[in-house]
């Protein structure tokens, strides 16, 4: 199907120009094993200089055909509902040997790059060019929500920390009870000397911190009255 605005241009060019382009979509597993499954709205667009634009719907044999192309440099884009296709550059020029035939060439092109930056060569032919184009990726429309997963939940660091502390709270007394008496004594001693416990331990200091005294500029008065807190287990 030709967009009519291109017809005026077509009429201007001589009818002898017979530059045809056929783009086919081959079977390309695993992405697209069966190109016949492409939606009927799949179409290819050739954008030439301002005002020149050709559009071709997909055919029954998975091809797009563009007959009678005018001499120009075109951007070929294949639009499909489910797949992305790479953009191509198609040049239709007068044949070098001066015959009526025209040369059709195709390269891959890259968006955002200058037009002269051409990618892999797809083919060149006098008069009629047949190229194959494969989808680059499939369109994935849907965002899945991170659903509730019990394993992920348990794996999270917060829950792991909580579980460990729960295990300690419940497990410690039993470990202590089953400890041999000497070991237990040693452990108690160690706890008393530990930096967090005992009268000079950080925990005790923190607990008995005399804020009023500190604010009043007194020195370390926390030693006083650090009573029998260390007695606790």
């Amino acid at each position, binding site marked *: 199907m030709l967009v009519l605005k291109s017809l005026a241009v077509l009429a201007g060019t001589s009818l002898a120009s017979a530059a045809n382009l056929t783009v086919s979509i081959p079977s390309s597993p695993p992405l697209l094993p069966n190109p016949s499954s492409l939606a009927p709205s799949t179409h290819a667009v050739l954008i030439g200089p301002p005002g020149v634009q050709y559009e071709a719907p997909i055919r029954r044999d998975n091809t797009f055909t563009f007959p009678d192309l005018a001499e120009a440099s075109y951007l070929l*884009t294949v639009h499909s509902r489910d797949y992305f296709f790479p953009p191509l550059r198609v040049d239709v020029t007068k044949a070098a040997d001066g015959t009526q035939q025209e040369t059709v060439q195709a390269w891959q092109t890259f968006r955002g790059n200058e037009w002269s930056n051409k990618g892999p060569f797809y083919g060149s032919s006098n008069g009629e060019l047949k190229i194959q184009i494969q989808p680059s990726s499939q369109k994935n429309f849907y965002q899945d929500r991170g659903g509730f997963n019990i394993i992920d939940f348990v794996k999270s660091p917060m829950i792991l920390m909580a579980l460990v502390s729960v295990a300690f709270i419940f497990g410690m007394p039993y470990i202590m009870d089953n400890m041999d008496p000497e070991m237990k004594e040693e452990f108690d001693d160690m706890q008393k000397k530990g930096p967090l416990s005992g009268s000079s331990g950080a925990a005790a200091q923190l607990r008995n911190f005399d804020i009023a005294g500190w604010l009043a500029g007194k020195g370390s008065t926390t030693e006083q009255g650090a009573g029998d807190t260390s007695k606790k287990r």
Partner: protein
Amino acid sequence: MLLPLLTAVTLFLAPACAVFSDEAWNIDYHFALLGAPKEETSFFHRPNPSSKASLIYTLSEEHALGAVNPRDGSLVWRQILASGGDSHNTSFLRAGEGQDVVISGIGSEVAAWSAADGRLVWNVNADGPLEDVEILELSDGKETVGAKDAVALSGGEHPMVQRIDGASGAVKWQYSIDGSDAPYQLSASSTEVYAILLHKTILDYVKLRVVALDPVTGQKTDEYMLSSENELATADNVISVGANSASPIIAWTDAAHTTLKVNVVGTKSISSFSIERHDGNAIERVKLHAPYHINSLSHFLVHYETATSHWAEVYHIDLKNSKVEKAYSLPRVAGRGAFSTSTADANVYFTRVTRDELSTVSSASHGILGRWSLSSFGVASGVGEQVEPVHAVSEVSVKGDTVSAIRTTVLLSTGDWVLLRDGKGIWNRPEMLASTVAVTFAMPADVVALAQQLEVEAHGNPVAAYIHRVQRHVVDLQKLPSFLVSMPKKIVQGFLGTSADHAAGSDIFGFRQIIACATRSGRLVALDAGHPDRTLWNRDVADLKPGQSWRPSLSSTKDGVIQVSSAAGTGINYNATDGQQLAGDLPIIPDEPDLSTSRAVRYTMRGNSLEATYDWSPSWTFTPIHGERILNLVPRPVNDPVASIGKVLRDRRVLYKYLDSNIALLATAHDASSKANFYVLNTISGAIIYSNAHPNIDLTAPVPTIMSENWFAYSFTSEASDATTKGHQLVIGEVFESLIPDNRGAMGASSNYSTLQTATDPPFTLTQTYQIPEPISQLAVTRTRQGITSRQLLAVLPASNAIVGIPYGIVDPRRPVNRDPTKDEQAEGLMRYAPVLDFDPKWYLNHQREVVGIKNVVTAPALIESTSLVFAYGLDVFGTRLSPSFSFDILGRDFNKFQMLATVAALAVATFVVAPLVMRKQVDQRWRFL
């Protein structure tokens, strides 16, 4: 430490604008429409000749070719045919018996489409506009096995008849028509192809010239002129040229519809019948219904229509002597009716649809084979409006002397296309929405009622307000019993997640807004955004004559009211909920300047310049440079709330936005040098705030523009030179008072501000250009109630048949160029600028659906801040809800109620289990201390 966390947050934010798999298909709705089907291009056809299942094919008024599944009315495939843009609005669709292709003809193009999946098989361009396309049903041994050839008649400078190979699309022969006669139609019998031409006599009457061609060689075998004796004034009086029947016919009437003349093509004899008058009204239309198959009986039905009633007569053709005889007539019935022809083997059946009855007769005798009463067509219509059938297509299967099954699709006067199976409505397609030209959102009145009552209480004196409130509560109490009854069901539904958001009786979120659509045919159709599958009401508001057009504009001036105004008429108000016209509220066009509106600046396009008047005197004129034309002007929306006057940076400093409610984006084009200019104007003073020029632009491609808040966006297609890039670009610009944080620029020091005084320093504009993969035809922006939610740029992609929602953060012009973002910028969600912007398929609002032919997108705020309602129209109708910054004020579908209950239950269990342990431990401790 903070940085990874913040990047995590931004990563988390990125998919916020995506379509979630649990929301897709639920919160969005889509009518894949074709437009009003045309009678002569709609039929039942089997896409696969070996199977019995048939589809309904149609080529509509909107030039959409499609196949509809008769089972549920769903669209199987669809192709939008380029009409060539000319006014020659004829299109053809034919299907040969037992063929797996359908052949369309539109403009100058004949194309064959695979009937099962809608792919192109071949296409041929005729040199002139097509006048007719037919399928040659004859078999001459020369055609390819299986595919039947097509014959096309084209007009234009070189009128000709072409025979096109049904398998390859190659032209087998062509016959050039000589003379200046206008080609009219084609007709094919089993032995010959007839081209019917209209010959103008000196007295300006029309005579029919018939050229008979040999179908094998394309040689002319015969030519003659039918003596129509000066009774054919125009071609409109030719009512039918039958095709592809055993004996094709031409029928015409005189201008006053008093006699019917019938000629069997190929003979020169004309049978004349006088048309009986059944009532006082003049006959308005005569239509002819004949079977389309070469081996069916050569019977036909003539359908007469007056303003108030219709009737029909059935005629038989004697094949041996080509005599036409009247067989029987069908009685007159009030209202309009539709007849359809269906065939089974050689038998022909006529199905009649009237306002309240569906009946089938055989063409051989007038005995009724099946009759079903129709109570209603099940479509919404205006109050007191009689829904009438316009045309119908049927598929009949007859066993013995009764109809065993009948499927009839009827186009109704409301614009709905319905399918009746054995007289019962199965589905309806709201095809009138395919010609929507204007749309507005309106709040239903019942939602508004509470807000109004609260307002009364807020503004009354305290005692009165208290009494009012007590009264309101008493009234509310009456609803308590029904509320209590429905409560358990609601709770169960709520937990099972079966209650859709709209199942709730009242709409507290504002999702159930009424969408009023004005169609080209002069109807106003209201949809419920919460229940889109049913039309609320559908009424004729414009009373247009055929061929007349209107340019309505819709607005909802106050809640619950829809105002329709047209270029010709004044605004008329309708109740949004039921479509009743509100009386006593008809405004009159002000002849004199209205004081209340005279302080507004008005714009007029005068010639090629834009003129603004203020206080009814010219204020400023914008005249483009010589050779330029104005493409479009987009002002900032009137209702465009902005929550914050600045952008708060990461270091707590503020970039002040340039917020002016009177700015507009103007695009001009210079065709000679294919250059486009874009200007941001202050519409009060006419000052140019920003301008930019782009050379090498394809001005035939769409140039959409949008303006909102303090930013604007536009898109165009650029042409390549070797050093530049070819393709489509999206430009986005944001206007700031100053680019220095915490600085308000020129406005900082002044305490007063006037839009009329041109500022000495223009504001600062940041722009960024992105290469996009495909063209954008239309831009829109989401709107929320207070403008706190971030905005999404909505772009219509005609090439992919999609609407994409681009998050503003992605196209933010403040993205750092040529360097990685600093930590502060990263924290704001700014990424390094990349020139290529790919549309992530997750941004497609329509996801897997294909929304075709979208002409415009309208947005409206919901009652909750997070959500914006979106409605797109054109050919298809598509609507959805968007939450550009998550649904932060509503529990979405991601909120797992079971999980919440399970957590509460687990905590309760844990409390009960742990309580005795804690108790014991406390008691133990007491003992230890003492």
